[in-house]
């Protein structure tokens, strides 16, 4: 898949933002007034910023309100509704804590659960696609949720949770890569099943249908970037998981925490870039590519 910046920014930032809102809704950290304002600003900034980035992926962003209609069947629609509902609930909760020193407990808990649900709906947009075997697994929601929670805990300054969640997301990330590398082969979809000619013998793409490129090749067949995937995987793990754990275990200071956050987000961007760049859409098989 083409690793388009808008979807990488969207999934990374909104994941972090909603992850932070999960903790804020559960009174972690339990601060009111100005400090609460700062935390909520970061949470809303990331979540809303991510969602805005996603509209750059649209061909017709001016029609984006229509995307709230099909929640019965479409995960993308469910995500849109879930995100707006969550942000509205959390906005009321945040106003209570920031301006009135008052904690509307039920809204915090509902907002927390809904934040998690929103990240889940995002992950299901990708996990539902049979056409991309690497994503079509329960590991995709696990990957999105664990990283969202780990990043949220890091931003919320919940060091104990953060250690635990970072280790879990590192483990999930490794599983995603190991299992993902075998997913296309295990899916059973080949150039032979795609053309139905596999029963006759070995099939090879002889001539493409066109001399130039097209939308399909640009959107779904991304081979160049996979060259450095092994190196990028290691860099991503070090930045996203290893460095934050190391920095947080040294001693707590705002500088170290800030470095841990920067390192985590950089690693997260690389991980998300790989998530898209390494995903093989089966349509590539028709072109003799993967």
């Amino acid at each position: 898949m083409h690793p388009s910046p808008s979807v990488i920014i969207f999934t990374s930032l909104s994941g972090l933002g909603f992850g932070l809102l999960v903790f804020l809704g559960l009174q972690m950290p339990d601060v009111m007034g100005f400090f609460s304002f700062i935390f909520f600003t970061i949470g809303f900034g990331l979540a809303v910023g991510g969602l805005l980035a996603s509209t750059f992926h649209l061909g017709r962003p001016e029609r984006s309100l229509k995307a709230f209609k099909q929640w019965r069947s479409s995960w993308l629609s469910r995500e849109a509704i879930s995100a707006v509902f969550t942000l509205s609930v959390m906005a009321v909760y945040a106003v209570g804590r920031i301006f009135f020193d008052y904690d509307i407990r039920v809204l915090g808990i509902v907002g927390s659960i809904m934040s998690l649900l929103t990240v889940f709906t995002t992950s299901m947009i990708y996990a539902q696609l049979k056409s991309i075997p690497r994503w079509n697994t329960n590991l995709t929601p696990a990957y999105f949720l664990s990283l969202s929670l780990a990043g949220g805990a890091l931003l919320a300054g919940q060091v104990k949770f953060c250690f635990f969640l970072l280790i879990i997301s590192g483990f999930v990330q490794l599983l995603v890569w190991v299992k993902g590398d075998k997913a296309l082969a295990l899916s059973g979809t080949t150039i032979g099943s795609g053309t139905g000619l596999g029963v006759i013998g070995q099939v090879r793409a002889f001539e493409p249908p066109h001399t130039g490129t097209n939308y399909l090749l640009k959107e779904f067949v991304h081979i160049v970037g996979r060259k450095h995937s092994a190196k990028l995987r290691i860099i991503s793990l070090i930045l996203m998981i290893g460095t934050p754990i190391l920095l947080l275990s040294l001693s707590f200071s705002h500088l170290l925490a800030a470095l841990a956050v920067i390192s985590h987000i950089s690693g997260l961007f690389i991980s998300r870039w790989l998530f898209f760049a390494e995903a093989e859409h089966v349509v590539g098989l028709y072109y003799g590519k993967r």
Partner: protein
Amino acid sequence: MTSLPETTEKKLGLVIDLDTCVGCHACVISCKGWNTENYGAPLADVDAYGKNPEGTFLNRVHSYEVTPKQGTPQVVHFPKSCLHCEDAPCVTVCPTGASYKRSEDGIVLVNESDCIGCGLCAWACPYGAREMDAVEKVMKKCTLCVDRIYNENLEPEDQIPSCVRTCPAGARHFGDFNDPKSHVSQLVSDRGGIDLMPEQKTKPVNKYLPPRQKDTLDEIDILAPLLKPVAEEPNTFIGWINKQLDKI
């Protein structure tokens, strides 16, 4: 609603005969022509006369080489367009309801004025049947020429999809798969029509007829061994000159 209909009254679709297709791409051109001049947004070309021309097409012809365990390889031309799947994954993922499958005839269509161009339907389609138009920024796909097949202003023989009407080899057939007596249903049962990527569980309506088994020739000509070999050395004047020139 982008939920799929339980059943459809008719099941209109195509049968594509891989044994007959000669790979002339006439269906590609006629499809592009009809669908640019008629219903919906035109199929745009970008840099059409420049160095890197590309464009939107609803139908494309690949060519494959198949090498059997025994025997010689063969080239198979392979036209590919929307298969109008019964369990169309492109329909259910659509957030706006722009992508839908008609309950009356099973045709999968895009309501272009509702399409936000998110591209998720194209991601969901394993066949690459949908292409985002680079100019209109909406999703384009085969309509089964819905503006021809019900168009009574056209002559009866023209009330079929443009690609089928155009195919000079007769490799494309159009009809109702719900009617077991229809031309297309008969072809599928006689020739063992197949689904593409059955493991994706999309239940395509369009069927492909696999190439027939090639016959083998044991002896080219039984009289050949009895024929006199052609003189290897020409005995003409030119032959003499040839020899003399070789000696020099």
